[in-house]
């Protein structure tokens, strides 16, 4: 398969505009501006089947079409470069090595939704990527791809960079907007949805870096071409992030629907030290875990849903037989407890309570009834929070306990954690 997003990821200097243009960059932008009306681009992206790569898989073109028609309020586009879901590290590579691709996608998408101010929100730690993008915006402005009357089309656009401050919740779209507005990033109740009332209460579209990076290619090669890649409902390619106990961790751009087993054993070179596989988290830390015998599954939105889990952000975390599942879960819950914004009670108290239970479990102080209690708390958090962070915390807990119950029971009945994770941090 020919790579789309990663075609030039290893090309030296691809993050400079000359190299990007020598490799075919900024050919989609003039085409979009000259040959298409904004609404035709929305239609094209709809037809391509492109779905959000930030986690939820919502069709991008459909989301764009939710914007109010003929509004006199400004429309904003936000590029979500907050990438903080544990196990996910694809956007950083796109932004550091081929940032103009994302920028071109941003400009075209902004044009398609009649937006004149686009914001790229980087997680605070991505200082280097933000610096690179700042330079790219300057380069693109010099060439007349950003600014007033872009390529004589009469279309104006400013692109602003915002940097976060180390909060996972800022990846959640409503919290992200709160953060740009300068507040503590507490999530907002939906509805209203951002397309109606988003940034500064104006119509706003938020898309992930990888989602928008696909747009120039769709404009250049057509919606049908894009839709012919991948599966029927999950079109295009996907960057799968492989980490944990594999021989060749890293990002792999493959067709949507690649088999998980193939991804781990062929692309990833198999399990570290040739040990038996124990478990795989398929789509970032928030998605339900799969047991070793459940990995013969296609990595697309529908196939993973059919297995009771999710494609999420495609952060594949591999664990071999030396992993203590209680300790592994503790590490994840420690994260959610730390990152809960604290606005709603089930998430704030639930994550904290679950974290305390798991901490006592790995300290060998768990009580036999703690296992049911842990599951019970998670099942009361899920579906009951303002934003999906609560669900994101509950899903790993419920799936770990369901699928590896014996390890939890063992630890709560005097057994020792069997694994290499050491500290009960906190």
């Amino acid at each position, binding site marked *: 398969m020919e790579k789309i997003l990663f075609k030039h990821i290893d090309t030296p200097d691809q993050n400079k505009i000359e190299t990007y243009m020598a490799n075919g960059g900024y050919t989609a932008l003039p085409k979009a501006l000259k040959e298409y009306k904004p609404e035709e681009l929305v239609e094209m992206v709809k037809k391509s089947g492109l779905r959000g790569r930030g986690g939820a898989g919502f069709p991008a073109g459909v989301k764009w079409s939710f914007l109010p028609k003929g509004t006199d309020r400004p429309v904003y586009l936000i590029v979500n470069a907050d990438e903080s879901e544990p196990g996910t590290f694809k956007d950083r590579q796109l932004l550091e090595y081929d940032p103009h691709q994302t920028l071109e996608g941003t400009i075209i998408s902004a044009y398609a939704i009649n937006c004149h101010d686009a914001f790229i929100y980087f997680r605070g730690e991505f200082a280097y990527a933000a610096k690179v993008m700042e330079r790219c915006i300057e380069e693109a402005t010099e060439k007349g791809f950003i600014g007033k009357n872009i390529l004589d089309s009469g279309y104006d656009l400013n692109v602003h960079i915002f940097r976060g401050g180390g909060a996972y919740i800022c990846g959640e779209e409503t919290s992200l907007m709160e953060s740009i507005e300068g507040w503590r990033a507490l999530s907002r109740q939906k509805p209203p949805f951002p397309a109606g009332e988003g940034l500064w209460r104006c119509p706003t579209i938020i898309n992930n870096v990888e989602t928008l990076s696909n747009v120039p290619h769709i404009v250049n090669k057509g919606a049908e071409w894009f839709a012919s890649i991948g599966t029927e409902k999950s079109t295009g390619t996907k960057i799968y992030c492989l980490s944990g106990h594999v021989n060749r961790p890293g990002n792999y751009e493959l067709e949507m629907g690649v088999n998980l087993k193939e991804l781990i054993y062929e692309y990833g070179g198999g399990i570290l030290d040739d040990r038996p596989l124990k478990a795989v988290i398929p789509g970032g*830390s928030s998605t339900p875990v799969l047991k070793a015998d459940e990995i013969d599954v296609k990595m697309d939105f529908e196939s993973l849903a059919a297995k009771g889990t999710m494609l999420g952000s495609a952060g594949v975390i591999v664990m071999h037989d030396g992993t203590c599942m209680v300790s592994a879960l503790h590490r994840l819950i420690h994260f959610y407890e730390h990152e809960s914004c604290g606005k709603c009670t089930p998430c704030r108290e639930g994550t904290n309570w679950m974290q305390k239970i798991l901490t006592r479990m790995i300290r060998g102080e768990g009580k036999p009834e703690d296992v049911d209690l842990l599951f019970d708390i998670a099942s009361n958090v899920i579906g009951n929070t303002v934003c999906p962070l609560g669900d994101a915390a509950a899903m790993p807990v419920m799936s770990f306990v369901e699928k590896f119950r014996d390890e939890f029971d063992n630890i709560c009945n005097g057994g020792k954690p069997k694994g290499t994770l050491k500290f009960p941090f906190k």
Partner: protein
Amino acid sequence: MLISEETRKKLAELKDKYPTRQASIMPALHLVFDEFGYLGVEQLDEAADIIGVSRLDMNETASFYTLFPKQKVGKYLIQVCTNLSCALMGADNLVEYLEEKLGIKLGETTPDGIFTLWNVECLGSCGTAPMMQVNDEYYEDLTREKVDELIENWRKGEGS
């Protein structure tokens, strides 16, 4: 006044850049952090006055974001990722090794004020685990040898 002339100028430019003054808070936090390496209440108050927001709003927002230490930390702020993918690849050993090497525990600063050691959540670098962030830079695929070399270099740079 604590904030330098140069930063004050940049802060002043933020004042009317966005639809609301409140929106210049995040960029302002970064400017102050870049100059001081932490956000103290006095700096935040000064910055608030320049960008034209209330001191309370400025401090309230700042307190939410853990990227910014609220007290002075070592010249090199070492932050080791201990989230799952890194933990699976030996982040805990890395923390232990750094503790031993620097003679401090997690959360502490060396008496000479050069190193601070923290553990943090996933930094989006899970495929090159274990890893750490030191000030603005990422250091990936870490081994004991690499850590030795880095620490030696930083120590040398301090002439000790």
